[in-house]
């Protein structure tokens, strides 16, 4: 799962750092770029053209599902993974409706996220 560029959209600084570390550890050649809210994420995804966008569902302003929907409507090819960190906010169905390719939960070892990254590339 070699990706040149991955965009992570999450409003939590600690989580961003944790995810970035996990992604770089999994593949040191990956460039990880980050955004702290949906609007910024959409703008960066247009400018930077990442191969994968990872979106946390709880974001200030427009939420993760809406961010996913807008990125998808502008780009049918980009791979999107929607991610949730809270037990009571897990909703894969809503993420699929918004056009995500994969869905995962946010854990401290990023296990599920790395699984999702593998799945997103497998045929």
């Amino acid at each position: 799962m070699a990706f040149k560029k991955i965009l992570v959209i999450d409003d939590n600084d600690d989580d961003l750092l944790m995810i970035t570390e996990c992604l770089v550890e999994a593949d040191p050649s990956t460039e990880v770029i980050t955004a702290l809210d949906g609007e910024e994420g959409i703008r960066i995804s247009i400018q930077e053209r990442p191969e994968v966008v990872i979106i946390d569902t709880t974001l200030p302003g427009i939420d993760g599902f809406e961010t996913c929907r807008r990125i998808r409507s502008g780009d049918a090819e980009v791979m999107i993974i929607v991610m949730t960190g809270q037990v009571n906010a897990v909703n894969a169905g809503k993420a699929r409706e918004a056009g995500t390719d994969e869905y995962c939960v946010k854990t401290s070892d990023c296990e599920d996220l790395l699984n999702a990254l593998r799945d997103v590339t497998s045929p």
Partner: protein
Amino acid sequence: MKQTKYTIFIIENNVSDRQFLKKILVEMEYDFAIKDFATGKEAMSEMNIRPPDLVLLNLYLPDQDGFFLLESFHQKGLVDLPVLLVSSFDKEDDKKKGFDRGAIDFINKPIVLEDVKARVACQLRFKRMMDDQKWANQKTNEGIKMLYKELENQNKKLLQLDHLKDDFVGSVSHELRTPLAIMRESISQIRDELFGEVPDQQKRYLDKALINMDRLRNIIDNLLDISKIEKGKLEIYKEKVDLNKLVEEIVSDFAVKAKAKGLILEGAVHGTAVYALVDPEKTIQVFNNLIGNALKFTEKGSIEITVQEEEDFIQCKVKDTGKGIAQKDLHKLFDKFQQVGRKHGPGEKGTGLGLAIAKGIIELHGGNIHVESTEGEGTAFFFSFQKYIEESGSCMSFRSALISAIKQFNQLSVIKVDIRNLKDVDAFKGRITKSLFRKSDRVIIEEQHVFILLPDTEKEMCSVVLSRIKGSHDADSLGECIVSFPIDGLTCDELINGLERTIEGENHEKNISGRR
């Protein structure tokens, strides 16, 4: 958006129909794979490798008939596989037979392009919806499970940290006690002019130091107690105790304070003894904490303490007419470091541990405590203790107290006093209680002897304690001896032997000198 690519099987022996169906499907703007078969057998062997997502099936095949194939799909467990029948339906009940065997729709021959497009599109949309639903359910379930596991792990880590913190508090408190005790003793001796005259002004400052050292010791003892309670290491030594008498004594201790605040303090005195099987020191602590609290939070009215003998247990009550506790705070009242409704200000400061300790002690005794309170009207604490029943006779023996003290402390001394020749035993006991300042000091009274256990005390200090206890009267009429751990013995037996030897030795010497 990445989606699984669907595969459609066309099972049709008529070449031109097969080609026509294929052409229609290719022209549809869906991204799916098409595989076509002229016989049922070919289709079945491919089916075993990778089942398709949709089947277009002619009922009349040369090798196996379509009905047979439908049954085979079911037998292979492909219950959800959607099958569209493409047929001329020669017999009237062929459609019914097909649906009975699991087909979901049909296309009449001769084939009409629009029929095929509409029915295939409909089935694929339906299939996509079902798959998405299944995927979402699975992802949601797995996700929730994973996050719960994560929470559990975090919880475990927090609990470990909590234990670490408790251990730390426990050991630090323990280390603080000895130097504090030495400091207190030194200042106390200076203040009592043991080493020369002390001017009044200096005495006042030394008194201030002593009061605050006692406060500090109280805080440290509380921390140590709560840490022991939480680790299940607080030991209690149950004996026969008259709770009525105990309450009477405690009430008299608090009388001055209550009077100063203009409060009526009533203890339960019915003259009759109510015997409980409790650790007297710990029980006093419970009453002290509850009455202390009541005094703190009551501005006018009364504090009433009752001890009621029930059939199986003894019910105690400490009731005040204070400001009361809000309903929303009641549940956290017994949690440690909670100072519910307490205003910070001058006066006594608590540690927020009193009620947690009281609860811990009561529960260690096998009893329970609960609270009833109305804001603005007052608060009542109800708690129970075990009744003393004569047969149970499980009085704390000196031996078991000594064994546990050796385990607990690095150094301790034991004073044994012979009380057989004593005229006023009660007065003597009273003096003992007044002479012992530390909570860890223990007194065990047996028929002929009184044992005083003094943890963290050197042998030399014991004579000071002993002279305080004996007072000026009948100073010579008692046979007493002192042993210290670890210098006189390392085990309980060695120490007890030491005590017996010394007493016998003294008697022997007395006899000899008497004869002279």
